[in-house]
């Protein structure tokens, strides 16, 4: 099982997001995508799962995103949903639903048309909610949750879907610093079983350094850099990425990147 991007050139309106991008995402890997605001991280993520918005232009000349050597756009959506899942940057939901119902929508691709969720599905959703720390929230209304709790719920929905590839758009925003570590550890543990892989848009280089084993940096002009985190995440590359000098601090356990006012 592998997810490959071959020769992908992507642009939105006049803005070039990436030129001739080539990457192979393998199971067991946890990728981080970084770049300045508006560089096209979300668009890239949504294109990888075959859902580019209408104004995204894909240069179709040789460009191919493949899952197990089959073109993403050739999949039926319901089949793709069993293999790839997406956690969006934000959700807007205005209707009364319980937390358990919201997590259960992750089972949709696995349930036949006329079938209802059975006990096994409910067990999976409950386990996912427990994992993200929403154990006592099953019957709570979604709209009464705080920002951080909503974020946990969104992840629980994806955990309930439990696809082979997790595409995560800023999964830890709104979370407190301890919760950020909990959630990222949870994901890292999951991917380290070597059965699944993760691709995450993230802004914090320190969290990326700590949890991601591979990185993709998207520069402003469509250029990109990818590879092992230890090779890619350094003060030079980050300085180029954000166009701002970056300090690198090391102690015995951690590496920190701190931006400096120029």
């Amino acid at each position: 099982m592998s997810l490959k991007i071959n020769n992908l050139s992507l642009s939105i309106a006049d803005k070039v997001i990436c030129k001739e991008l080539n990457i192979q995402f393998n199971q067991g890997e946890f990728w981080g995508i970084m770049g300045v605001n508006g560089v096209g991280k979300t668009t890239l993520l949504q294109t990888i799962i075959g859902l580019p918005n209408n104004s995204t232009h894909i240069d179709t000349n040789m460009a191919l995103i493949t899952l197990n050597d089959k073109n993403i756009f050739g999949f039926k959506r319901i089949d793709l949903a069993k293999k790839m899942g997406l956690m969006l940057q934000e959700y807007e939901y205005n209707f009364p639903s319980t937390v358990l119902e919201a997590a259960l929508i992750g089972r949709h691709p696995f349930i036949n048309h006329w079938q209802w969720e059975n006990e096994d599905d409910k067990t999976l959703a409950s386990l996912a909610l427990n994992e993200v720390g929403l154990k006592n929230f099953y019957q709570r209304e979604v709209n009464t949750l705080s920002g951080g709790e909503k974020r946990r719920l969104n992840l629980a929905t994806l955990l309930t879907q439990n696809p082979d590839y997790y595409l995560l758009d800023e999964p830890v925003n709104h979370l407190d610093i301890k919760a950020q570590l909990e959630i990222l550890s949870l994901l890292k543990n999951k991917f380290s079983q070597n059965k699944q892989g993760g691709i995450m848009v993230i802004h914090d280089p320190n969290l990326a350094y700590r949890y991601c084993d591979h990185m993709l940096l998207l520069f402003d002009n469509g250029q990109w850099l990818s590879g092992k985190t230890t090779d890619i995440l350094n003060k030079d590359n980050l300085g180029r990425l954000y166009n701002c000098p970056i300090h690198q601090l090391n102690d015995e356990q951690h590496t920190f990147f701190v931006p400096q006012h120029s």
Partner: protein
Amino acid sequence: MKLKNHPFIFLTCLIFLVIAGFIFALLTGSGHLSSQELISLFNGTASPLHQSLVFELRLPRALAAFAAGALLSIAGVLMQVLLRNPLADPYVLGVSGGSALAALLAMLMGVNTLWLTGSAFLGALVSIFLVFSFAHSKGCWTISRLLLTGIILASGWGALISFVLVISPAEKIHGMLFWLMGDLSYDRPLLPSYFILFFGFVFAMTISRQLNILLWGDVQAGSLGINTKRLRGYIFFLSSLLTAGAITLAGSIGFVGLVIPHLVRLIIGTDHRMLIPASALMGGALLIIADTLARTVLAPQQLPVGVLTALIGVPLFLYLLRRSQ
């Protein structure tokens, strides 16, 4: 006990409410029937006057009210999913305005009921198509843009409806006005409406789980395996069909399509597998009761049922809106 966890109990209660509504409608009116007289109707011992009163006047009218209420409620549920907004109804987007205009033009030309039904349906389709093609330009469209387009278009239909009323001969205007306010006093064929209701209900139920997910947005729904473009097409087609069915049967009855789904959601939540049947039953029952009141409160003067539903619906809606803040 929370009803939300026992939706089947709620559905059973609603079935009894519908039956009660029918009994109320059959008994009440200019000639009051006792319940014994009602029973005698069904074992064939009633007087011929009562026979024709109930079977030729009250029963068809109650059946029409039920169908109109159920159609509007399901259409409202679908429109709220399409706009991802619990405050949407078929009328907000001007769908019924287009339908009404076409129906009035048909009435002006004096065509038969079949053509009236057809043109009302076509009007609804044209209207909903216009809204979407204007709101959806160059691939970028937002729900607020959609709503704005719908509201503008609705006021456009309103102007054209006024125009048709102005140029219509006086003897047709009374009927047209009643039609516009929503009225069940005319004898219209029931079978097509029940066919639309049955088809629409079954179709809506087959996509009901997908509707739950579409409420989370197109990208999320897409990533969970739903072909959102096709699903939106279905919702679009279904809601216009149901609205057209309701409007040809009963004219522009207001607020049922908005208030009923909202009310039911407050009681049993948003799962469309329950929401759709419950809204249909509740809308049907309430419209039977409202119509029976409409023909009796000021008897012998009849009120258009739409006036009554609006009188109930407006305060209820304002209350719900206030509560939701």
